[in-house]
């Protein structure tokens, strides 16, 4: 097995046993990147210099007996909407071409402090708005399982990099499913933590009340490792949880006896590919076989959750993206007056999906429409939470497919926003509720495309989430890797 195929846990073990070095691990992922980037375009920026220095430091520290923990010396990637001081951060937008943030996001700092080696910045849908990583001003990313297909999105670059082995793990951000859906479409693990547990400071905001940073990794265990490195209270984020954090691994390895698993009735049926439904149903059966008590549950509000999401997220985005005006940083267009300069800058600097969502959000908040759209959407959001609270009185976790389909063909949904939005239908409710969710790969369809299994738990229910995810992973024994014809760049 080549180094780039290792999990974080395996790579860490080799490092500590002296069989390899951080520099070797970095060389392996960079080599993998150099052979796959031409097809996948997972990265926007690779920071060879910074990464080499960090790897050398990690090796020197380890030699001196300084060990920062499980991420020590491990090369990982960051989605390009997380600020890295002095390293270009664009959120895949023309608006931020060449932008060098003067500060690090909290997650960036935490990864550095955990000894991780930051390889570079991965591609995304512009400002994380999309489900295919096609809405990038710097070109689309592709799926290592079939380069004619999308890797999902918006964290598609992170997903493709981890799936193909050009990063041991990566961070993504999940506003409506942007970690879990690409993880599902690329056959890896993707986890959205409880809202408020991972600092958003330095994450270029899409929708503040929905955004959450989380890991994309090759294994459930690796996801827990990365989560532990990045989560925890941050005084720079008012929405950051300051209470006691559970140990996400505390229940991992426990069997499923006595655990109540709810299968969400609304997340199935019309629109779901049969292969996806079959694989998910098969896994549910196996969970039952392991002693879990499986019940079907109905959460009627899930049927209208997506509509609420597509009003709330754009509404928040319309304000979050107002700051991009060509004055203090980023792209600037010509204009005789400040007013003209701003409006031209924004029309030039934003891509069509971003403009569409800004317009949608502006409309939903505007006088005369606020109550009918934004106000109603907030009510639906509250109802989704109530629905979930009621359901969690009866079950410990919920399960569903992560996405209704496997990876779709590139270009196919670009001109049909609604069709694109529907690929997040299973993941959106967890963003509205703030609860954690994880996607675990469970198999391939007849076209050799991965299928993801979605586990959901109540807020701060990470221990039970990881417990079930680990069992799903064990039962699925999904070991396939994408076969990509490497092309030297």
């Amino acid at each position, binding site marked *: 097995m080549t180094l780039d195929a290792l999990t974080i846990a395996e790579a860490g073990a080799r490092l500590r046993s002296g069989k390899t070095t951080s520099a070797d691990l970095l060389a392996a992922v960079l080599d993998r990147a150099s052979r796959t980037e031409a097809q996948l375009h997972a990265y926007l920026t690779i920071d060879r210099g910074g990464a080499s220095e960090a790897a050398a430091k990690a090796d020197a520290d380890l030699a001196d007996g300084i060990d920062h923990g499980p991420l020590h010396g491990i090369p990982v990637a960051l989605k390009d909407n997380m600020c890295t001081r002095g390293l270009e951060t664009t959120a895949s937008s023309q608006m931020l071409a060449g932008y060098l943030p003067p500060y690090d996001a909290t997650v960036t700092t935490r990864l550095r402090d955990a000894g991780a080696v930051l390889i570079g910045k991965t591609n995304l849908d512009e400002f994380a708005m999309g489900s295919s990583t096609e809405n990038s001003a710097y070109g689309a990313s592709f799926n290592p399982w079939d380069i004619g297909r999308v890797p999902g999105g918006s964290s598609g670059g992170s997903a493709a990099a981890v799936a193909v082995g050009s990063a041991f793990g990566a961070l993504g951000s999940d506003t409506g499913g942007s970690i879990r859906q690409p993880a599902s479409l690329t056959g890896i693990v993707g986890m959205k933590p409880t809202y*408020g547990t991972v600092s958003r400071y330095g994450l270029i905001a899409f929708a503040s009340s929905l955004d959450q940073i989380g890991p994309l990794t090759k294994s459930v265990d690796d996801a827990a490792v990365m989560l532990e490195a990045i989560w925890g209270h941050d005084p720079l984020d008012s929405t950051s949880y300051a209470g006691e954090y559970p140990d996400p691994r505390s229940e991992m390895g426990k069997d499923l006896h006595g655990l109540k698993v709810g299968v969400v009735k609304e997340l199935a049926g019309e629109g779901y590919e049969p292969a996806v439904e079959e694989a998910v149903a098969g896994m549910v059966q196996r969970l039952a076989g392991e002693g879990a008590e499986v019940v079907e549950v109905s959460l009627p509000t899930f049927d*209208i959750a997506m509509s609420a999401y597509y009003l709330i997220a754009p509404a928040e985005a319309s304000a979050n993206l107002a700051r991009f005006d060509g004055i203090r940083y980023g792209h600037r267009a010509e204009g005789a*007056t400040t007013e003209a300069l701003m409006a031209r800058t924004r029309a030039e600097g934003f891509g069509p999906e971003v403009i569409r969502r800004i317009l949608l959000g*502006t409309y939903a908040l505007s006088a005369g429409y606020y109550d009918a759209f934004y106000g109603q959407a907030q009510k639906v959001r509250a109802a989704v939470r109530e629905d979930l609270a009621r359901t969690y009185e009866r079950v410990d976790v919920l399960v569903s497919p992560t996405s209704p389909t496997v990876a*779709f063909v590139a*270009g196919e949904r670009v001109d049909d926003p609604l069709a694109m939005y529907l690929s997040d239908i299973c993941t959106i409710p967890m963003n509205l509720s703030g609860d954690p969710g994880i996607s675990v790969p469970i198999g391939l369809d007849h076209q050799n495309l991965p299928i993801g299994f979605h586990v959901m738990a109540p807020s701060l229910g990470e221990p039970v989430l990881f417990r079930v995810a680990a069992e799903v992973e064990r039962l699925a024994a999904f070991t396939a890797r994408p076969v990509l014809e490497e092309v030297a760049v």
Partner: protein
Amino acid sequence: MSTVRPTDRSETAATAFYTPATMPIEIDIAHVAHLARLDLSQAELDGYKAQLGDILDYATEVQSLEGDPSTESEHPLGLVNVFRPDERRTSLDRDEVLAQAPESQDGFFVVPPALDTE
């Protein structure tokens, strides 16, 4: 980008949830674009207006829930009263900040004159 190869499955997925509403939704797209400070051509405005119409038709299903509209949502973990002490933190280096500015002069950011009508 590779060739577009739509498949039956994904088309099903793409359209299955979508039921058009009967009432057309009124959108003054030029006004919305002005509020959002987006200088768009008429053709662009027309295109966005049509797309917004489709999305909003779909989104009207949020109106199916009864009761008064809500204006805010609670933090999922119920956070309240998060404050910082009135203590100084280091400010940024001005040169590093201004280096990112499209135009600056003598320590200031520079823009063309403002219209005083807004």
